């Protein structure tokens, strides 16, 4: 049978539940702009009703607790997409710095190469002219410098990325430590049936930061999240973080080793670390190798053409360019071997005024190098590759950004704090609180009436 005391107790529980709900709303509003925060809701449940055998009467509300609203699947997709975006961004940043060197300007390799052939052709109209000869030397020097500059841009970019690898690994280790430290706390909360709440939010945010650095696979276990890299190298197991290490490899580059010392460099493909390694070890190495091949074969072809002729003093043509014996490093070290215009092997027969061999030198422009293309075409392919790599990285980064926006919208639609909604909740819970308070005051009046009724009887 219902009593005033029961009703008062129901009203007090309602006040407490509404206070809790107001507190959650307050916390949601306070964290509306906190990155990684998942909105919380107060979980209300009907109190067990009182049954007197004939009828059942409700006993009000019970505040069960607070629940963060999450979507693990979307959270996971965001992590994956962040890895792709960071990888593409790492590549894009490097390519954007490399690209100007291969953009047509007054001193790119293509322009300097044309200038050199023009100067040779100009010399053919007056092979004894020292000013025309000097123009050939200057053009040759400029071309060598253009090769040197392009090579230096690529290698310094590579060196920068190499430093980035060490920095990324150090950041990854810090993050995995922090993630591992949160695992026992979350496991404890879950064991007691509670929601991970803000600690889970913190961990998710750390995993997201980690995803920006490398590929991460997340598995939920009783001991919290287990994290592995894309190829299965464990990073976090329970409360333990397994630090990655770096060491200088035989190629002079920083290699990434797992806890057991196994080299996992090649398996890292996404995230900033993956993008950095791919750009360092594949993209730039590939471009450098082609640039070296071009410099070496072009230099050799010009030297071979020089050797077919004779200089102004009738001597067999000596090397025009100094090129190293190995192809690697050719673009970095190619330099002009002759210093005097009279050393240009213009003559085909040893007589001073002959220009016969300049045709051989000029023919290098239209002759395929051993790699299969003419020097101009080889350089043009290089430009095409630089352009394609940059534009692909740009497109990948753009696609990932747009995809991330969609995913974040989806996550936000689940977990994000809407100020309008919280304002409405505020009104709802305020009204509910006021109503419950009114119940308390009504019951208080009823109690007074009841007590007065007793007093009147006694009097």
């Amino acid at each position: 049978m219902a009593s005033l005391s029961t009703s008062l107790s129901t009203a007090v529980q309602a006040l407490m539940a509404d206070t809790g709900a107001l507190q959650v709303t307050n916390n949601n509003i306070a964290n509306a702009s906190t990155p990684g925060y998942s909105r919380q809701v107060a979980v209300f449940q009907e109190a067990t009703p009182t049954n007197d055998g004939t009828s059942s009467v409700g006993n009000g509300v019970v505040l069960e607790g607070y629940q963060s609203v999450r979507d693990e699947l979307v959270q996971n997709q965001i992590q994956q997409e962040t890895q792709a975006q960071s990888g593409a961004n790492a590549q894009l940043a490097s390519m954007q710095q490399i690209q100007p060197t291969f953009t047509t300007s007054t001193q790119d390799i293509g322009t300097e190469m044309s200038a050199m052939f023009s100067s040779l052709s100009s010399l053919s109209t007056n092979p004894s002219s020292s000013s025309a000869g000097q123009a050939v030397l200057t053009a040759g020097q400029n071309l060598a410098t253009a090769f040197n500059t392009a090579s230096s841009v690529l290698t310094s970019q590579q060196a920068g990325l190499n430093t980035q690898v060490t920095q990324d690994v150090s950041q990854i280790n810090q993050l995995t430590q922090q993630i591992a430290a949160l695992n026992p706390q979350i496991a404890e909360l879950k064991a007691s049936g509670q929601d991970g709440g803000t600690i889970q939010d913190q961990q998710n945010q750390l995993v997201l930061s980690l995803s920006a650095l490398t590929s991460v696979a997340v598995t939920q276990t009783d001991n919290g999240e287990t994290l592995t890299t894309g190829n299965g190298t464990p990073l976090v197991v329970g409360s333990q973080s397994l630090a990655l290490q770096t060491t200088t490899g035989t190629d002079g580059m920083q290699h990434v080793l797992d806890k057991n010392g196994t080299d996992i460099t090649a398996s890292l493909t996404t995230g900033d670390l993956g993008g950095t390694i791919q750009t360092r070890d594949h993209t730039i190495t590939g471009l450098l190798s082609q640039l070296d091949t071009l410099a070496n074969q072009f230099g050799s072809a010009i030297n071979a053409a020089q050797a077919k002729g004779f200089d102004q003093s009738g001597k067999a043509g000596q090397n025009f360019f100094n090129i190293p014996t190995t192809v690697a490093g050719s673009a970095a070290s190619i330099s002009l071997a002759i210093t005097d215009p009279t050393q240009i092997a213009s003559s085909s027969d040893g007589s001073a005024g002959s220009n016969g061999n300049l045709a051989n030198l000029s023919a290098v422009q239209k002759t395929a190098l051993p790699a299969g293309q003419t020097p101009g075409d080889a350089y043009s392919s290089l430009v095409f590759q630089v352009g394609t790599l940059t534009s692909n990285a740009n497109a990948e980064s753009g696609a990932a950004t747009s995809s991330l926006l969609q995913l974040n919208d989806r996550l936000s639609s689940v977990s994000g704090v809407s100020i309008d909604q919280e304002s409405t909740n505020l009104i709802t819970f305020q009204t509910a609180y006021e109503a419950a308070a009114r119940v308390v005051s009504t019951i208080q009046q009823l109690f007074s009436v009841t007590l007065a009724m007793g007093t009147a009887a006694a009097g």
Partner: protein
Amino acid sequence: MRVASMVPDIQYAMQKSQQALSVALQQVSTGLRVNQPSDDPAAAANMVVSLAESANVDQYTSNVSSVLPQMQTADSAISSVVTSLSSAITLGTSGANGSETAANRQALATQTGSVLSSVIAQANTSFQGAYVFGGLSSSTPPFAPASTNFTSTQGTVLFPLTATLPLTAGSVTTVSDAATGKTFAFTVIPGENISSLSTAIAGAASAGILSAGTTATINANGQLSISTNSSTAGIVVQSNDPVLGSMAASPGTEVANAYVYVGKGNVNSVQVGDSTSVAVNIPGDQLFTSGANVIGSLNGLITALQSGTTAQIGAATTAVSAALNYVSQQRIPLDNTISQLNDQESYLGQEKVTLTSQQTSLVGANLPEAATNLSQAELTNSAVLAAAAKVLPQTLLDFLK
């Protein structure tokens, strides 16, 4: 879908529209659709090839410009030679007239001598310091007066040159013989001395390269003396060996009206198109001393006028006519080359236009389109900003009292 906050979407939209605006602005301000390889990798790569072709066309055009005046100079020199030969024929024809006195013929011979000098001057025509009929050796006059004896500047009575004196390795001494029309070149290899040179010259004389009796000896003054027996033709000796010093004609040994071609026989070709080259310098020997020998025929006419019979003068005049015909024929390929160069110049002009328009279509922005894109991008950007300004400040709180 529940929307918690529109801020990220609005920020993304603003960034996108600003990027589009920046691209449109860049295209309009530079006039280029491709400003860097990533804008269109294939176009940027084709541009590299196209620019190289443009540079070649520019250079070919410049080559035509520098070769053409040289060829025109040569043509005008040959034209003057033709005029000179015509006047020599007139002189010869009047000399062949039996009524002419010996004194008149002598005067005619002197005038013919002037004609020869003028022909030699034309044959030694230079253009911007280069002798147009010198073959490859364009820095020295190709026709030099012949002498019977040349002596070295090195060597004195006190310090005479000796047969065993080593010569400078790599140095070249040439003996050009007007009688044989050939040049013997002696390039010193290490260990050779003056005696080696003498032996080589004797060998060349017996081989017929030089006239019989051409010798190299050390004379009473201690100098190297290279001389020939051929008193009507003579030789020209040149040397770049510092041991000998330059070789100079001995005073009084000059052979009247005899000239030797000391230029080179080879020609230089200059590229004026991807597969077009023109021979630029004409070897003077081919033009003036071979075939119907221009200089020889004039020399013959002078000799005939000085001491020949009417018939001999007539024959010599006929020889000069033959030389005139020969030179006129030789002029035809030169005229053809000049006309080819003119054609090539206009072809290159067209080619340049074609390449430029190719480059514009490769990387150039279509300006009306770019301008439209720019105003479109401006409009989009303003719309995004206006929408943001309208949407962002709106919250329920504005309406709650």
